[in-house]
């Protein structure tokens, strides 16, 4: 088992913690309030992940985690992190979407969003992973973000921790929305901060893993596939591949995150009705 890369928020050479949870190809470790994920290199980067090849997790929840001088050990596993390249997210795409994009630019983003929505629809139907009630809650958030900012905390509360799974669907959706609002820059700054504040207040209401990713998102930290998708929507390059990569995350997390990205675009006015107008 060899570590091949680590996220930019994985702490320095020495720390201690405990094993939080163990899955077929991933382990979560709690370290200084952060949740580090050691997972197979087949899965993409997150800010707090360590990607490894050739392993089957054999640690158990509650076992101690130790990292000294760059050697990370937990359960029977030992990883050498000293010479492992660090993944850092690319800078936001240039030029950014401005407050009033040219009609051509706006149309291209909307067309892209439609393409993404269609791919997501197919993905969800094929796997039967639709979560009833999620869309109603999402619409509520959209209305709050566009018209009634004082209702944002309430709308967030109805999403945080909603749905089954390790990272409940509502959490994944919120992360997707935050990703769009954070990477698109100035025009979305106010919406991002309103939403991030709401998320910070309610993050404790979900699972540990869900709360971890929500808190990261509220600080502007996102995983590789979601960043790739948002940037592809802005630049128009490689959109189908980036969409599929984003959908592949987790069991249903990918689809929920993509739903969040589409919601974020609508918050910014990139919706089909506008294209028609």
């Amino acid at each position, binding site marked *: 088992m060899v570590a091949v890369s680590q996220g930019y928020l994985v702490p320095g050479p020495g720390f201690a913690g405990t094993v939080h949870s163990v899955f077929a190809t991933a382990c979560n470790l709690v370290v200084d309030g952060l949740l580090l994920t050691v997972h197979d290199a087949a899965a993409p980067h997150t800010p707090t992940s360590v990607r490894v090849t050739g392993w089957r997790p054999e640690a158990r929840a509650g076992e101690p985690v*130790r990292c*000294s001088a760059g*050697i990370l050990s937990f359960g029977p596993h*030992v990883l*050498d992190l*000293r010479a492992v390249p660090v993944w850092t997210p690319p800078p936001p795409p240039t030029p950014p979407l401005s407050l009033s994009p040219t009609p051509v630019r706006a149309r291209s983003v909307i067309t892209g969003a439609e393409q993404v929505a269609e791919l997501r629809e197919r993905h969800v139907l094929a796997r039967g992973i639709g979560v009833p009630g999620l869309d109603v809650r999402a619409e509520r958030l959209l209305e709050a973000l566009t018209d009634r900012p004082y209702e944002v905390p309430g709308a967030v509360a109805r999403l945080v921790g909603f749905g089954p799974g390790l990272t409940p669907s509502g959490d994944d959706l919120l992360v997707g929305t935050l990703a769009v609002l954070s990477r698109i820059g100035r025009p979305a700054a106010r919406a991002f901060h309103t939403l991030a504040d709401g998320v910070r207040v309610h993050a404790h209401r979900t699972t540990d893993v869900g709360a971890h990713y929500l808190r990261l998102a509220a600080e502007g930290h996102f995983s590789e596939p979601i960043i790739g998708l948002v940037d592809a929507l802005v630049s128009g390059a490689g959109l189908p591949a980036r969409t599929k990569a984003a959908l592949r995350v987790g069991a249903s997390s990918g689809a929920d995150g993509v739903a969040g990205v589409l919601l974020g675009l609508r918050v910014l006015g990139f919706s089909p009705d506008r294209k028609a107008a």
Partner: protein
Amino acid sequence: MWSEHLDVVNVGLAGFGDDLRAAGGSVTTLDWRPPAGGDPDAALALARLVGHPEVERANQVAFERYLSAQPVLTDVVPAKEAITEMAGERLILHSGPPIAWERMAGPVRGAIAGAIVFEGWAQTPGQAAELAASGAISFAPAHHYGAVGPMAGVISPSMPVWVVRDATSGRLAYSNFNEGLGKVLRFGANGPDVLDRLRWIGGELAGALRPAVRRLEGLELKPLIGQALHMGDEVHNRNAAATGLLLKRLLPALIATEPDNAVLRRAAEFITGNDHFFLNVSMAACKAMLDAAAGVPHSSMVTAMARNGVNFGIRVSGTGDRWFQAPANPVDGLFFPGYSVDDAAPDLGDSAITETAGLGGFAMAASPAIVKFVGGTPADATAHSRRMREITIGTNPVFTLPALDFGASAAGIDVRAVADTGLQPVINTGIAHKEAGVGQIGAGVTTAPLPCFTQAVVALADGLGLAGAAA
């Protein structure tokens, strides 16, 4: 070396090994991990012991003594006759390293209370517990008197013990009688039925077996164990075949002593009804083989592994009577319906003496049935047995494993190898309920905790003047 072909062991960054291979070199990259549990001082002490001529020599002597021991079942006697220190004393032996009454685990306390009532020193288990707490009873590890017992391992003066003699050295080893499953003293039960059974074992059963065993004039146990390994036992958690083999030898002798028919029937029923009957005999045999290897100065061979329900302890040939202790590791096992890990007592008992002697978890390849306890496959079992060879001085040619092409079982654990590789000895074990008297609630596999071995390494280095900052 300039003319030699370079053959490199790469310890650390894997990339260097890949580069060397790309450049045409021969290279083996280790799956390295910080040795000695990550303690740099202990790691250095360990390094100074690797290949140390004194230690290597001592290990040869100790291992040779272990191999040449000939455990023979010779007698059945009350404990106070075998262990003269117990005669007329209120001394009770228990499993594992030394421990005070106040710190003992629930099942051990229950068993001791039962033994006190059994001896007639108190009327009820409650009074017995008070008596034990008052300091009026002495406690000591069975290991300190050449004895071993499974689980609580409680031996009181009137209980009968098996006597196993090492024909090579003349040394004696003892173990108590196996009471069967369910509510039994070794799991801390001490109700009237438990005590009644103990009285019957000490009276009628021991009385019947004593002349029968003596009639056998020394039953050689190593060949019997070797045979059981070929019949699906690993002689720790599975003793079905060995119990049958023992009975095969015992029954004709028993009949030849012409016992009362009712006695014979009850004895035969009891023995045939308990697949673990041989376990205690196996443990005494292992104890005899390992005591033969004890006390060789500077030897790093483990001579005992035992648990008292709180700590796991090991003893090492070159460090005399010292125990090196650490909290016991959790058991990876299956629980009987209705019980979970929350109900389990920490790992308990002297029965890891079987692993110390190369049986049990070390011989798991012999017993695919046992692997089911941990949801594993026969391949996992052979992997366990193979892996143990990495931490032993050698193998025992008398204990061969069919699944390993009749290769010999790993034996003679070297504390240096355990500390160096981090491979912890595998132990097959039963799981006791944490409350006294409930009994066995599961079975599984655990490991001997690493800190015991690193402590032993430091002590050995100290004995050679090699511990400390610079040597």
